[in-house]
């Protein structure tokens, strides 16, 4: 196990915690999370397009996603926590947690890919 694995895994955990607590905070203040969710979705889309069409073809990164096991583990943990807190965060909150955690651990993965782990 390398620092890369720990880093991508812990980034995902941190992102889940931040996302759930922020969604709860937004809900407590009666602020809709929809706008933030769509902004995150756009950031994720731009980031993925950059990775697929610029970074990968130029050889800056080898793989767009982490290895299958790490990817399944991270997505599985995000899914589990989102479902545990589904009642408190609602459907959009659930989607936000999934998108936010995916975005953050994906960025961490690309950072490590970019410098050769």
């Amino acid at each position, binding site marked *: *196990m390398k620092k890369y694995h720990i*880093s991508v895994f812990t980034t995902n955990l941190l992102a889940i*915690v*931040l996302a759930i607590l922020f969604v709860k905070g937004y809900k407590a203040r009666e602020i809709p999370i929809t706008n933030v969710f769509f*902004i995150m979705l756009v950031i994720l889309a731009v980031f993925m397009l950059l990775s697929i069409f610029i970074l990968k073809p130029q050889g800056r990164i080898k793989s767009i996603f982490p290895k299958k096991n790490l990817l399944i583990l991270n997505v599985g943990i995000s899914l589990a926590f989102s479902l545990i807190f589904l009642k408190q965060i609602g459907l959009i909150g659930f989607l936000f947690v999934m998108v936010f955690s995916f975005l953050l651990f994906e960025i*961490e993965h690309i950072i490590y890919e970019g410098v050769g782990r």
Partner: protein
Amino acid sequence: MSIFQFSFSEIPEAVSIIIGFINDNLILSGVLFISYTLFYLYGIINNKSVDSDVYEIDLLGNGVSSIMVAFLLVGLDESSKGFSFASLDISSPTTKAAIFLAGYAILLLLFAFTKMLPKFLVVVFGNSELDLFINFIAVLMIEPGIAITGTLLAVIGVPLLILLIIERLRRLAR
């Protein structure tokens, strides 16, 4: 009490605020601390490995997470409740903290790409303790009833600073 004022008499109150927050969010606080503990243990166990040290890559990681936290903090005290930057309440402490954090994050990203910082400062800004400190303060700011004071910052920051010093001394003594 402002964030620049520290008082020993306020330490019990700060500790009870932290314990109250942890009790209210037991699972999430547990996950937050587990994520940090995993990273710390990796550094402690592999302290002879070059892989476990702090590099510019950590500045990048911390910069990205800080900018995301700043972005989410901005929305908390924004008057239109529609995430419009034109409706930012600049006088609110949360917005001020978010703007400061965004500036700090941009500086981290700049330093990471230019690699202009000396190694000592890379360790100071790229360590996981500082990242946990920022994230923990940010999640405390979400709670409307919690006022961030200098004492609260010190109660959270000093143990993390001690952990950082222990880890760095272990690396020096290898």
